[in-house]
Structures are given as C-alpha cells and as structure tokens.
C-alpha cells in the first residue's frame, strides 16, 4: 500500500507566503529535512531551501519551525480562512 499523503489533504487556496528561511542563520543541520512529513525542505550544495510550491503542500504543522534550533525558519500561520482543512481530524 503506497499512499501519497498530498492526495489526502484538502486546502483553501490564497494563503500567501507564511514560511521563510534566513540563510545567514542556517547551520545546515538538516533537522528540517528529516522532520517535514510533506518533504518540502531540500538541500543544494551550500544551502537549504523550501520548495517553491510549499503553499499547496504544507500541512501547517510548524515542525520545521520548532525543530530549527538556530531560529533560521520563520513560520506564521497562513491568512485566516485559508490553507489546510482537516475534515476528519
């Protein structure tokens, strides 16, 4: 049974940007890459980044923000009434 989690999440579009990374503060520890269940954090040779279309894949769990010890990840919830909707939460 291979389940694609993104098929199992509903969203209201229009969130705007709500996650950002400050490359200066990032130590490349890769904790965000390990923790994000939507697999939205990636690493290039010299830096870590979040994928461009994260707004349509993010689960708003804030795990990346919480796990980032140096405080390189900024997270605010998306605009009220937009984003993830859990009907069976």
């Amino acid at each position: 049974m291979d389940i694609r989690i993104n098929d199992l999440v509903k969203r209201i579009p229009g969130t705007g940007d709500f996650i950002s990374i400050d490359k200066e503060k990032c130590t490349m520890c890769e904790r965000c890459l390990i923790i994000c269940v939507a697999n939205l954090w990636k690493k290039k040779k010299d830096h870590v980044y979040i994928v461009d279309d994260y707004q349509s894949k993010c689960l708003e769990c804030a795990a990346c923000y919480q796990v980032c010890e140096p405080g390189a990840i900024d997270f605010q919830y998306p605009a009220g009434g937009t984003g993830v909707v859990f009907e069976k939460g």
Partner: protein
Amino acid sequence: MSIHNYDVVIVGAGPGGSTAAKEAAESGLKTIFFERGRKPGEKNSSGSGLGPRMWLDFDIMKELSPDVCPSMRAGTAARHYFVDSNDEVASYIMTRPTSSVNYEPAKSFITMNIYRSEFDPWLAKFATDAGAELKTSTLIVGLLKEDGKVVGVIDEKGEKYRGIVIGADGVISTVARESGLRSKWAQKQVTITIQYDFEVSPKKIDDIMGDETLAVWWSAVFPAAYQVFFNDGFHIGFGNWMSWWDKNPLHYLNRCIKLKYFQRLVRILDAKPREFQSHLLPWQGEPYDTHTDNVMLIGDAGGFPCPLEAEGMYPAMITGRAAAEVAAEAISEGDTSIEFLSRYDTAWKKTSVGEDFEAGSELYSIWKALPFSPRENMSWIVPLVSEVLGGIIDWSEPHPKRIRQVARTIKGYLPKIIPMLMKEILPLLTASLGEEKMDLVTNPEKLLAAMPEVELALAQAFMSADDEEE
C-alpha cells in the same frame, strides 16, 4: 483602526478557548474569541478520544449525541498489539475498563471517539449561546501593548481588541510568543504527532471490531501507535519528541501500516485512506510560565496535556475554566497583574489536571522510556511480554519443563527489568505513595520478614531453571 473593548479576548476556539469563552460569558463578562479556521475544528487534529473525566466535570457532555456528532463511537475495549523487532505481531491482549473503575461513563468506555471537525463547533456553540462573540477566519498576529504591557490582541487586518488575554491558541501559540512567556518549546517538551484517517463502513467496524474500538500497537520498530475507531473510520497515528527522529516520521508510521497484520485488518475492514494530518503536541512533566501581566495560557498553549499519555482536550477545558474564573476575579478587583494572576496556577493545581502533574516528571519519564523508546526498551519488553503470554498455551514440551524454560527466559531479562524498575517505577510509586509507605513496600528485609516463603519460592524456581540445559 478603532479599538474594540472587551473584558476578555480569547485567541483560539479549540476545546480550551470555547470552554473559557462559555464560562467567561456566563459570568457576565463581555467576551470575544477568535479562530483562524473558517469554523472551529477544521485546523485541528487529535486521536481523538475524549476521556470520561469530561463527563464528571462538564454537564454539557451529557448532551453529546450522534445527532450533533455523527462520528461518535465509544472506545469501549482496547487491543494491545505487541510488535517485535522483525515487524511481526508477536502477541496481543484485549482490555476493558477494569473492575476498580467506579463511575459512569468510565465503566462503559475508555474514551469517546469523535472527529474534531464535529466536536469543536458543537462546543463553541455553547459559548456563543452564552453570549460570547466568535470571529472565525481571523488570524491573531500580535498583541496590543501599552507601556510594554499587553492590553489586548491585534488581528491580521490590524483590528485591535482590548481585554484580558487568554491564549488558547494551541501548541504554536502567538500569545505565548508575543507576550514573552515562551519563544519556542525545548525539543523535549513537544512531539510531532501524525496520523492517517481511513474510511470504513460502520457495519464492518461493528462486525469485525465489535466494541474493541481502541488499539495500541506497542512496538520495537516504531514509537507506539494508536488506532482509534469512529462511526465510519479510524485513525492510525503516533508521535515522539522532536529530538527523537533519525528518519522521517512518515517512514516509521508507514512501517506500522505495512505490518502484515495491519494490512490484513485493512483488507477485512475494506479500509480506504481518506485523510492525512500532521500536528505538534506539547508533552512535558510540568507546566510553567503560564501567565504574565494581563495574560493567561491554557490548554496546549500552556503545555497542559497529561504528562503520561498526552490526553489534551480535557486539560484544555479544565484550564480554560480556571482561567475564566480567575479573569472574572481579576476584572472585578481591577487587578490583572502577574501577581494577581498567579491565582490561575493555584486554581488549576487544585483540579484533577493538577493532580496528574503531581507525579508529572515521573509519568513523563516512564512514557519516554517505554513506548517512545522502541529500540532501546520495547525491543526486549515485547519478547518478554510475549514469552509470558505465549508460554501459557504451549504443547512443545512437558509442562513443568516449559515452565522452567519460560522462567529461565524471564530471568535472562532481569538485568533489564531491574534497572527499569529502579529508574522508572520506584520514583513513580514514591511520588504517589510517599516515602513511608514506600519503605515498607520496597525494603526487602521488611518484606521478607513478612513473607519468607517468597524468597524461597523464587530461588527454587530460578535454581532449577538454571540446572536445565536445552
């Protein structure tokens, strides 16, 4: 922008926020509460079992029925599966509320299982019926401050609301962050908890599970997973502290889903994956920094889930009630200072939630050592439990020999069992029984003076087991 004046402004319409709003409005306070979702519950993810203590403390719970909450299913009995290091279900047992449980509805169910998308709006309606104002689709982004002190909240459109602030905004709390109470959790104070929802026909659940509508998958290869059955589906999920993960949490949850045994259940239930959720959940030994000038934190925002199993909805409601009471006192006495609001700590500590935290760090430590340490500890506890359960019915040898084999195997685990008892169980017993009673129970001389035959019997069992070779 104008400033809207209230007595109490509450951020969040989860179980904590709605309870606080209801009780504040009922005591005559002008109350508003805010929710970032289009309706309460649609941003939230829980197991979701409601504990029976809710029915003791909140009369409204008696009105919860399938009319308003169609997903309801009582978690009457629980299965405990034990998964070994080879991804095999090595044994399982079933339990019900035991004979020492002494009140209803706790005798009838362990949890009442509900979806948050139904429960949260139902609860919020009691608050609006009591006169509290609910603003949905509204994100609170900051706190209104005067002379460095918090006097209210600010929403994403810049609207300002003045009043005593109750932070009911869950694990990533803007109120905690902006009031300076907590910038972020320590990694060991918060878990990531993820779950799948599967759709199943109610009839299949009735026929196949009967009233066994909770399950824990205790495991040596992933953190213990819970399975919670609703009217027409189930959740399978788990969590662990942020510091634990060496691989993606989904890798471990999928390992549970892929167990042969689990897949067989999915087939016979004809279960279809329907939703996936990821959420953080605070899990710590002792709430602290719960209030400051004009601010109180309740529920997840204050770190109140139970230190053993992180039941969090009941604590959110209890602390919501305590905060509403203290808010009413503070307003009538015209003092919302941090000193005055320390009454909030006094109030929640007197409740059943406060009692859980009396042994908070011990309970936390046990959970950490057992279900949250699959490789270190469950890897021997699972075979140990299975040896005991499986050793009972076994026709491979003459029974006396089997008993000795089982006893010898158990003895082999003593070097693991004894440190575990000393490190985890004794501190908990001491915290609950007190030093004096503990001395009686744990002093081997006093104990054996009372029962010398115990020592003899134990010695004999293990000596004869030692003599016997394979």
